[in-house]
């Protein structure tokens, strides 16, 4: 058990290292560097040289990679291309906001998805399943900016119930994000609910068709006791992994929603830094998002392992 844990941790770490190399190499290959961005495109000659000298950009790439990676390991993500702000502090506030959004969306989406997934799975092919399963395809496939736009149109432009965009500044306290945060949360939970629900539904259907559920029925186990005690512990195991993927997505990939609602999270910071060609920030963000992704997935694997006796016990017979 411990051995597996260490092996997984090690592999996760390897993945993060590989990611950091990809990020570094990717940014390196792109034309331009922090100095060209900082000094505008026209900067040539001496100024550029001295800037590069200052930032140590004329050293070999490998050397700079190790420098960067070593500092990042210690929590120092460098400074932004504007030359003054420490990236760590810039990211800090945004990460908090992204977390707020993610937590709100998760606390609505996950329970909803699991409950509806179980309902649709148990009443498979009944009207309620058809209704929910069809709406789910809509929720899952309509682009986020489309659903956001429609929601803003209805609730903000026509009905005037909710603010359409977030005006609160990035570093404001959490309480000030309400009620502006409601619409983005709705959009995000819609998408994630759809994905998790489908997974839970098919998993419930699979488990309800298994031999041990048939046996439980024939053993005289009352229906709901069977569902909760025999079926769900098995059916919900695969949901752990997809919830992890969702968390990773919420913390790094919700660029479009953040832009539509003008929400000051990591996604918008990412797109802004790319537009500004603020490469140190891009690198730092990519590294953070990738690390979150790797370790959220790792935790999900661990959790599955703990929850599933087949994986937990090493002593297994054929």
């Amino acid at each position, binding site marked *: 058990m411990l051995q597996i844990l260490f092996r997984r941790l090690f592999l996760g770490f390897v993945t993060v290292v590989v990611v950091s190399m990809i990020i570094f190499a990717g940014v390196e290959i792109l034309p331009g560097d922090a100095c060209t961005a900082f000094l505008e495109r026209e900067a040539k000659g001496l100024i550029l040289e001295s800037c590069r000298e200052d930032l140590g950009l004329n050293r070999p790439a490998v050397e700079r990679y190790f420098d960067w990676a070593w500092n990042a390991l210690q929590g120092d993500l460098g400074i932004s291309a504007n030359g003054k702000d420490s990236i760590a502090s810039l990211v800090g506030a945004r990460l908090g906001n992204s977390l707020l959004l993610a937590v709100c969306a998760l606390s609505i989406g996950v329970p909803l998805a699991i409950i509806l997934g179980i309902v649709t799975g148990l009443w498979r092919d009944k009207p309620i399943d058809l209704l929910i399963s069809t709406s789910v395809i809509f929720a899952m496939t309509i682009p986020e900016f489309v659903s956001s736009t429609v929601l803003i149109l209805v609730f903000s432009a026509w009905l005037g119930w909710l603010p359409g965009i977030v005006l609160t500044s990035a570093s404001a306290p959490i309480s000030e994000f309400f009620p502006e945060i409601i619409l983005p949360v709705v959009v995000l939970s819609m998408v994630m609910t759809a994905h998790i629900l489908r997974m839970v539904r098919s998993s419930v259907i699979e488990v309800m068709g*298994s*031999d*041990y559920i*048939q*046996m*439980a*029925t*024939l*053993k*005289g*186990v*009352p*229906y709901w006791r069977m569902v909760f*005690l*025999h079926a769900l*512990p*098995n059916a919900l195991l695969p949901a752990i992994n997809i919830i992890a993927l969702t968390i990773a997505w919420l913390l790094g990939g919700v660029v479009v929603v953040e832009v539509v609602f003008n929400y000051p999270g990591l996604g918008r910071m990412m797109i802004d830094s790319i537009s500004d060609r603020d490469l140190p920030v891009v690198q730092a963000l990519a590294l953070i998002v990738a690390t979150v992704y790797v370790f959220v997935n790792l935790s999900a694997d661990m959790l599955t392992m703990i929850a*599933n*006796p*087949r994986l937990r*016990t090493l*002593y*297994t*017979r*054929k």
Partner: protein
Amino acid sequence: MNKSSIIEIRDISIGFTGRSGHTLPVLRNINLTVKRGETVGLVGESGSGKSTLALAAMGYLKRGLRILEGTCHFKDQNMFTLGRTELEKIRGGKLGLVPQNSGQSLTPTLRIGQQLTEALRLHSKLKSEQYHRRVLELLTQVRLPDPETVVVRFPHELSGGQQQRVAIAMALAGEPDALLLDEPTTGLDVTTQAHILELLRDLAADTGMAMLYVSHDLGAIAQVCDRVMVMYAGEVVLEGTTRQVLKAPSHPYARGLLASIPKLSDPHLPSALKGRPPAPGGAGNGCAFVERCGIASEICRSTRPSLASGPGNALVRCHHANLSNRLSMTPDGKKVCNADPNAEPAIYLDNLSIRYSKQSLINRLCGKKDISPATVDNISITLTKGETLGLVGESGSGKSTILKTVAGLLPPANGSIVFGDGENLPREVEQRCPNHLRRIQLVFQNPDDSLNPRHTIAEILEQPLKLYFSLTGQALLERSTELLELVRLGAHYLDRLPSQLSGGEKQRVAIARAFAAEPDLILCDEVTSALDVSVQAAVLNLLNELKQKQGTTYVFVSHDLAVVRALSDRVAVLYQGRLCEIGPAADVYSTPSHPYTEVLLNAVLEPDPDIRPKLTTDDVVELAPPTQGCPFQRRCPRKLGKICDTENPPWQQKENGHSICCHIAIEQLESMQFEEINIEPASA
């Protein structure tokens, strides 16, 4: 309704709606009564509807099925009119079920103790503090050693036999009046099977429970049942006492079925039933068995026979029950024996050893040597041209592993494989040249898995022909057709896909593909275990016929001792990847034998109520061979003492190349076993 009957099924028909919209019956007009203290056997091949009937007795139908007519009573209650809560009270309570595959029928996330306690909570009047004691009692009752540890185990941590016992214990928790057993021993090793059957027989005797025992295996039925019903294509075709049905069956199907079972006491090849049963709804107006029957006449085609009293008071569904004794009911195929000890050798396996486990990276870096015993060790066998070597052993004995190694799919850790002409065979497939590969062909257990579902039969057969002989065009087509005819399939099979063939036909194609390479050696890996007995007989006959025509050398692996006997010239017995005994079939199957062979032979279930298996050792499943001494030391009923644990037993030679690997001297073994001999009284 009769007072003493516990389960009473009246004229039941069950069916489903087919693609065409017609109702297709899977069960037709079945009557079944099980009385208190009685064990009734329900026997039939796959698709005969026996499991559907057993589940219907519990008031349960699989998705898509529905009752067309008839009733199912348990005691006084009509199972299909009961409400959910009433059903829940009966199921698992007074009416218990032991399912087919306990490994998959126990909830994987609950411990054994929890699942048994649940059964008690639902179906017993005990107080909660008494549960634990009762659980231990139940586990002891089903003869599980060390119940305290079993209680905290999860299902996957138990062996197949242990899981089956837990399932029985669970059914016993409700103190049932009747127990339904759905293929409870299928898929278990012979020794385990015999143990479970003994347990069931004792339980029936002790508790007076009524039992309905569903199985395809007449051997198991013979051991436990008082009465037997034979099912065919959704009908009962024969019903009578076990003795009537197994000793003097009056239905042609039952006779054919018996003749298709290879028997340990009979070295003849089983005879196959031709054709296959009709699909649901395909039986037409006449007798369902008419196409396969040897004594069918005009009336059999036009009128469906009714189940009527026949010879010896058994109930028979046949117009010509009186004529059925014309049909043979014993295997009478003639086995071809090509074994000639003076023939040229075909292949040598020299001191093969095989390891599955790879060393961990850390151990390798530290330079540690792997000291765990090899999965398969010390296998030295010489095969002569034209002979058939049977390889028997229980699951985990390494028999399939050896085949994979010979085929090059799994490189050996040590030892070599050499052709009879002295050519050394490289260890791995990738290093072997096409001619090496051509000379050894492998036929797999399950044709569903070994034939690519996306290729037509023509494409499947063409592969070796193109690869080894560069055939094209007309020559290719001719040779493919020839091969199909060799395995008794016609050229019209060429453009079919495997999914359009029956199991037996698929296995024939797989065999044809092996013969396409014109190999020196064919490796058969449990080639008949996925098939019904009547189909198995046909495949055995085919292999036998090809052996005669082509002079092929086979290595025939099986867990079924009787099947191995039916086909093999020589037999090798494996335990935990080590050879115990090797010699001519007749010698291995008679005394003296290695203690393990003896255990296996004693445990075999014959379809004869007069031959009972003898249990001489526990059915413990060992996970790894011992590090030193005799591999069978932990289970051996004739263990001498310390010498068995510490020293490798010597090979002792007898006449005919029969040798036994044991510390006990051969003469001594012979006299020990002579006293107890009863497995082969006449034919040995």
